[in-house]
């Protein structure tokens, strides 16, 4: 048991460093972003009058709205794909691989690639997907196509493929954790109550892993919504999502517009997380056995 009491001086001192850090790198910048997004007038200075003009401008532009819609649908597709693949991988690793050595080998094979940075893994897809890339060469070698398929690289499809490989582990990890927490007797009890395997999965296993699924979905959602690097490298200049728009405005020194998009992106993420919390109380994860 902890010897540090709640609300004692020691507990506040322990929280102090983290609190200062969070305040400096999270809270203050977010407040600044929100403030800058409301700046009106011609000059870029704290003396600017506050107005919603920047937001009105954004919502008046059809292209931007289309971009926002694309970002949301793209994210939804990715959540669905990583959710299904991630669940299958998690289920296979925890339930089907019985031998501990095999489980370790497969687990490492699954996890080790994720030790490299996301950016590098994103870029690494380029030589795979290109016109002279590995996939096209393999397809032509086997005779599946005569001419290389250009749709892989610099396309939504290519971006999706790269991102699925980047984020599937985020969807699978929490499910692995939840699956491991299910006592084998629960499935056995259901079987002795005349439930065949599919029913056992649907009525017992899946509901018990639901918090893990939701957490995985939240992680994928947040990461895909914020991912500009993969979109830029694998999508080339042809494709953009909301975060790329932030970058575009920023590089064009349109700080107010960049702030507007950043704030809107944050609001979208916040809505997504709140929606997820409504489905499953993530804070109670692991409390029920």
């Amino acid at each position, binding site marked *: 048991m902890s010897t540090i009491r709640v609300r004692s001086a020691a507990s506040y001192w322990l929280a102090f460093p983290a609190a200062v850090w969070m305040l400096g790198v999270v809270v203050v910048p977010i407040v600044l972003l929100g403030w800058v997004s409301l700046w009106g007038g011609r000059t870029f200075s704290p003396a600017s009058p506050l107005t919603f003009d920047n937001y009105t401008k954004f919502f008046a532009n059809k292209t931007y709205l289309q971009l926002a819609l694309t970002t949301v649908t793209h994210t939804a597709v990715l959540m669905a794909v990583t959710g299904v693949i991630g669940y299958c991988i998690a289920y296979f690793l925890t339930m089907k691989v019985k031998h501990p050595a095999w489980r370790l080998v497969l687990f490492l094979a699954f996890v080790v690639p994720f030790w490299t940075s996301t950016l590098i893994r994103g870029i690494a897809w380029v030589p795979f997907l290109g016109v002279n890339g590995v996939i096209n060469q393999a397809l032509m070698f086997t005779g599946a196509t005569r001419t290389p398929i250009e749709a892989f690289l610099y396309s939504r499809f290519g971006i999706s493929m790269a991102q699925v490989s980047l984020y599937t582990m985020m969807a699978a990890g929490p499910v692995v954790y939840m699956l491991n927490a299910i006592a084998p007797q629960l499935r056995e009890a259901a*079987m002795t*109550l005349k439930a065949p395997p599919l029913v056992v999965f649907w009525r017992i296993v899946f509901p018990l892993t639901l918090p893990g699924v939701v957490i995985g979905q939240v992680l994928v959602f947040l990461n895909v919504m914020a991912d500009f690097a993969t979109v830029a490298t694998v999508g080339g200049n042809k494709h953009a999502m909301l975060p790329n728009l932030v970058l575009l405005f920023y590089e064009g020194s349109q700080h107010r517009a960049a702030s507007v998009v950043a704030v809107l992106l944050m609001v979208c993420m916040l809505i997504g997380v709140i929606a997820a919390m409504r489905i499953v109380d993530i804070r109670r994860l692991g409390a029920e056995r």
Partner: protein
Amino acid sequence: MDSLAVAESIGLRQLDLELRNIRKRYGSFTAVDGVSLKVSKGQFVCLLGPSGCGKTTTLRCIAGLEEPDDGDILIGGKEATGDPPWKRDIAMMFQDFALFPHMTVAKQVGFGLEMLKRPRPEIAERVQQVLTAFEIAPLADRKPGSLSGGQRQRVALARAMITEPRLLLLDEPIGALDYSLRETVMLELKLLQQRTGISFIWVTHDQNEAFSLGDLVVVMNHAKIEQQGTPEDILQRPATAFVAGFIQGNNVFRGKVLECTAGNARIETAAGTFTVPCLGASLEIGATASFSVRAENISDTVSERHPNRLTAHCTAVEYFGAVRRHIFERADGEILKVDQFGAQAARIAPGQSVLLGWQVEDTVLHQGTRG
């Protein structure tokens, strides 16, 4: 079909369960070794043994959760060895109850009927009846996380019993309960079993449970059945040195056969030479043999009725109310237990050396020379 085969098939149909030579290995470890068992209609069977003796694996084979490497399982006279659990006419209660944490008590108890595809109104009605019968109706909308141990046990039992299976398999079903609750729950379960006529196969390491509940007690050790019989059989006539030693209140002696005459054998042990009835067993002179005497059959008022005698040193006296148990140290250094009615006045004090004796017919010879 000739009449003999008909008679046999009728005979089989009357058995709720039959195990024929079940064997189960895990790698080089044999968990169940040649276990055969017959359970008649509505019998209460207790599988008793120390942990790791194979009793739980046997139960899991009956449930279909493990597949035996060898042997046959017949449930209600029908071959079920290859059937998965969901096709067997059984229900099972697990040691920690295995309640579904995400389902309410009512949903949980109705699960079995739902699986049998019964219509919803019927399920609701039956669940209500069963919850009332098990006195857990007020808990219908609660989830297992907020229930006490005793309540969970009732829910688990209700969930298993609602489909009225032919066999109810119970794996240490009251092991997770407080001691104070166990006796009441045991009595309730026994009455429930008698009322419903469902055969119970109850796995336990607790001999009090086994002997007070079982119509048939099966003692297992090292993957094998050591002895099966009524509680009286096993308590009065332990068949092997293991059974005698495992069951409380027995004093086990090991020695060599000196002579064998007129139905009695003389067996020489480190604590002396004793006369033991053979009861038809043929003993070779010089062979090793073991026998046991129950603690309450040893007397400290020795007369000519007690030809088996030894002197021992009392080291401790334990008073349990119903009995007063004296712990003696034998000449060979082993422990000897002697029980006296608790209502009688104390006669032996620790530190005394006492001449003890018992009758020939209270001495039980064990089979084989094992142990």
